[in-house]
């Protein structure tokens, strides 16, 4: 990250100055052709058990190291006091990417072959290499104890929850692997929601109606988040209290980790539902201080604590600092907090154009992604209600919570809602929850997997940015292990920093994304140079990178 870039964002008039013509479509539905047939089941039978309405997560990861990114989908299943005792449920699915080079995307279900047997009431998923062996492990968040699946490196997984000591029994939705103490092994930060038990279940009603509906989290005690310290021997230790993150329990749903204040330590930002967000600033000794209020990212500009669901971090305005985007409930804006370069944020939702179009939606999974490869980070948001949509209910819709997703194009720092022109698949409505992002066909355009609650998972193939150049980067350390939290500056001809992207798997809602970095280059087509900032702050330059392909940048190979 570039420190102290205090450039005031100038929001330029959107379309007139925009140098690239937009394509007609941004996404096409590739679910069926890719062989994905996954229906999330929430088990709702009219009792309105709270976890029914929250689940649905997805991960994009290369579990078998073949360079083709695979998909993990979280299942929920039956729910209720009786089901608790009955045992097995449908279970999560692992879909292996078997796409041929240049061919259409194809996936095959390898869940059993991979020995994944995740049958909790699933909510979300996180991905990270917790044991430092170079492959991606999977952490599944449940309503009930979570599970850690260790990747054996041979295409199979092993449930190591007990040995690792990470079976957090709280109701977890999102989690993040992040090296918070600089020892090259990731800690695990688990975001928990509320203390919900069937025997303390509350009956709630739709606003102004006698109709049963799901409750707000405020009727239940809040759960504290859990920070697991990676001891380096395959085991974790719950240090939540000593670290300070247990001090203020709130109903957390989304989490993103990054060095927001450029002090060399990875911080943790948690989106809380209806309560002020947490901005856990890493003090460098595995203790954290929540400074969200002063940092300006606890509540919106009006002083209102919003219903935080999903979250992502990215440099949308190219000032070299990571901004935050948090998704919210209907009649609340999704909120864009711009980082001034010092770790202080301002709510620029209105000025940036993301605020007003989000008011009619309840938004969950999201990401800053340069969808159209113009070098500016766009936003994709999946939407779905948590309380009954009156107009759907009036038509006797059996599950009246669905909404359409949204795409916001970043036009030089100002966002434009381009959903109407983004493709027919964006006219479909679902109860959107998780969303994972990754380049599933390795064409340089980041695709999305939407994990819908009580509905089909959808694979949205990105078809935007046709004809534009890109640079794909896999960032690995000297031992060849993926380096999330590394950042990449694209360099200009004069060596100046142009724009910044970061490697990550966390963010969004209940989901994990492709750890690679794709830099959109617009019309630029020549060999490129980048500057990589490794997680410990060291910087390294790589030159002569040919566009329109992926490069593996290994620490120590640059200059």
């Amino acid at each position, binding site marked *: 990250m570039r420190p102290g870039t205090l450039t*005031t964002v100038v*929001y330029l008039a959107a379309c007139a100055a925009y140098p690239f013509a937009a394509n007609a479509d941004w996404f096409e539905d590739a679910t069926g052709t890719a062989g994905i047939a996954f229906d999330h089941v929430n088990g709702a039978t009219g009792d309105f058990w709270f976890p029914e309405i929250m689940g649905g997560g997805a991960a994009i990861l290369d579990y078998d190291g073949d360079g083709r990114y695979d998909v993990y989908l979280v299942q929920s299943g039956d729910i209720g006091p009786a089901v608790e005792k009955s045992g097995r449920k449908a279970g999560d699915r692992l879909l292996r990417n078997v796409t041929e080079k240049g061919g259409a995307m194809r996936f095959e279900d390898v869940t059993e072959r991979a020995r994944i047997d995740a049958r909790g009431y699933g909510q979300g998923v996180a991905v990270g290499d917790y044991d430092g062996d170079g492959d991606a492990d999977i952490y599944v968040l449940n309503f009930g104890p979570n599970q850690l699946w260790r990747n054996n490196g041979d295409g199979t997984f092993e449930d190591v929850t007990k040995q690792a000591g990470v079976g957090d029994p709280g109701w977890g939705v999102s989690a993040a692997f992040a090296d918070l103490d600089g020892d090259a092994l990731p800690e695990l930060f688990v975001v928990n929601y509320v203390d919900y038990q069937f025997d*303390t279940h509350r009956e709630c*009603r*739709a*606003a*102004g*109606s*006698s*109709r049963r509906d799901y409750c707000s989290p405020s009727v239940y*005690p809040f759960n*504290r988040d859990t920070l697991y310290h990676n001891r380096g021997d395959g085991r974790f230790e719950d240090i*939540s*209290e000593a670290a300070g993150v*247990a*001090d*203020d*329990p709130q109903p957390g749903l989304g989490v993103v980790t990054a060095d927001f204040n450029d002090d060399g330590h990875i911080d943790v930002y948690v989106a809380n539902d209806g309560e*002020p967000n947490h901005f856990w600033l890493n003090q460098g000794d595995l203790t954290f201080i929540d400074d969200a*209020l*002063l940092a*300006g990212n*606890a*509540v*919106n*500009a*009006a*002083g*209102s*604590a919003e219903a935080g669901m999903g979250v992502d971090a990215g440099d949308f305005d190219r000032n070299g600092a990571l901004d935050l985007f948090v998704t919210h409930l*209907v*009649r609340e*804006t999704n909120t864009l907090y711009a980082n001034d370069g010092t770790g*202080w944020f*301002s709510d620029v939702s*209105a*000025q*940036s*154009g993301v*605020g*007003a179009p989000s*008011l*009619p939606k309840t938004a969950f999974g999201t990401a800053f992604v340069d969808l159209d490869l113009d070098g500016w980070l766009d936003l994709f948001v999946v939407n779905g209600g948590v309380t009954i949509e*009156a*107009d759907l*209910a*009036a038509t006797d819709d059996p599950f009246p919570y669905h909404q359409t997703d949204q795409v916001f194009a970043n036009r030089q720092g100002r966002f434009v809602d381009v959903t109407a022109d983004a493709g027919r698949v964006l006219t479909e409505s679902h109860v959107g929850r998780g969303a994972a992002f990754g380049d599933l066909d390795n064409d340089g355009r980041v695709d999305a997997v939407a994990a819908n609650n009580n509905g089909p998972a959808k694979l949205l193939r990105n078809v935007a940015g046709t004809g534009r150049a890109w640079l794909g980067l896999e960032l690995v350390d000297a031992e060849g292990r993926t380096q999330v939290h590394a950042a990449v500056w694209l360099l200009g001809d004069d060596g100046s920093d142009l724009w910044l992207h970061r490697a990550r798997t966390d963010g969004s809602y209940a989901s994990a994304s492709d750890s690679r970095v794709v830099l959109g280059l617009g019309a630029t087509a020549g060999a490129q140079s980048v500057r990589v900032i490794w997680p410990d702050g060291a910087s390294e330059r790589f030159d002569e990178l040919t566009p329109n392909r992926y490069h593996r940048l290994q620490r120590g190979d640059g200059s």
Partner: protein
Amino acid sequence: MLRAGARRRAMGITVALTLVASLAAADSTVPKPDLSESAEPVRESLTAEAARMTALLSQTEDAWALASGWLALGDSYFAHDFYAEALTAYAAAQGRVGEQGPILYRVGLAHMAEGRAAPGVAAFDVAISDLPDSLRMPAFVRRGRARLDLGDTAGARNDFEAALRLAPESPAALGGLGRAELAAGDAAKARDYLKRALELDPAATRLHQPLGMAYRTLGNIPAARAILADVGDGEPTLSDPVIAAIAQRSRSPQFFVQTGLAQADRGNFDAAADFIGRAVALAPDDLTIVATHGRVLAESGNYGAARAAFERVTDADAASAEDWLYLGRIEQAEGQFKAAKVAFQNAIALNAKDSTARESLARILLHEGGFDEATTIYEALASETRARDERGRLNYWAAVSALGAGDCPGALKRLSDGLAGEPPFDAALLQASARAWATCPGTGAAHLQTAQSWSEDIYLAAPGVETARTLAMVYAALDRFEDAVDLQAEAMFEVLKLTGLERRPELQADMARYRSGQPALRAYAATDPLFQID
């Protein structure tokens, strides 16, 4: 409310035509929302309102009479969150009498309630110049807020300034202008407007956020932290006759409950009780609302009415743990400790995890002298809590409860847990530790020295009955009996002045021991005020 002869304004044509064109059929067809899931009073009221409008359409051709009817119907729909039907009704009113500020203002409100800022602003644009000042002021504020949502900072600033010209002391206008100035980058102006708004309406705690950001921008970090520590949900007060009129049409018990709870959030418990009382009148058999009424009545101090409400709920076996908790608190406040104990036990029976009910029960047990049972509860609560400060507080109560029972080992363990964290420690914890060390057998010299140091500091900082008594205990444990007698006499004199010594026999007992060269036996006697409930 409707004004005849309104002239058509060029800026309003687009909005008006759009509304009328899109809803052309509305003028003769009364919109009817799906009321199948609505509360009974709402269903009855809206069905009657729609029938009244249908009848009116067949009875008269008078444009103004029909427009008034449509407006009333629209307000009723609006009051019950049926915004689409409300918009249809308002459009029909407009179709009869042309553009009218009050109608378009309502159109703007309905759009804003649905989260549609742009059409909301468009409607306000047309409405504002055709409104009386009493409506123009809130209209300017609402359009300003909508413009802020749309990123139109300059337009928002103009609106809030216009609102201030009409109502120079409006917290809503000042707060809005402060937000607009902050968005425009003038933190000093923002600070001044927001501070003034909060002076006028201290309950507008949402304004703490922009004020904190203004202080931050100005480099005054301590002020920023101080104001941000109390960010809340309080909206600045905005007087709006249209909203008040619409609210009057509500027949939704839930509306009155929510309005009442919003008043309660601002600390206006009497008003809250009135609103929720209206909800009870609309839905007398809804025991959830009755219980909510009871809670607000209890908060307002009207224990008699609150008790009556809770008795209805408990008689019907419909009380939640929270209801029993409130009832217990009422009983406790009225000195009915046995009844309070039963109520807290009932709350716990319904929700064994209810920490508030458990602690309330422990408090009663302390009062009754049931120290062992109280200690068990406090220990369990301390072991369950994940918050450090809270655990320290509960450990303290477990310790003093154990001391009340004469359980020195148990008390010392709890106090040791409490002192294991990071200083500074609460004075009550230090005082309890000093007393424990001074009265428990086998205390070492080092602990007694620490006890002396702490209790002297605490006494000097806050001389009084209990601090003098603690120091007397410590001196006695150190064989400084003359000093102990002096301090005990001071404590007894203070008690004598305040309440008389008959309620504090332990003071005289300890004095007798000090005079005979013996240390105190108990850190806290059963008659200690710490265990009493006032």
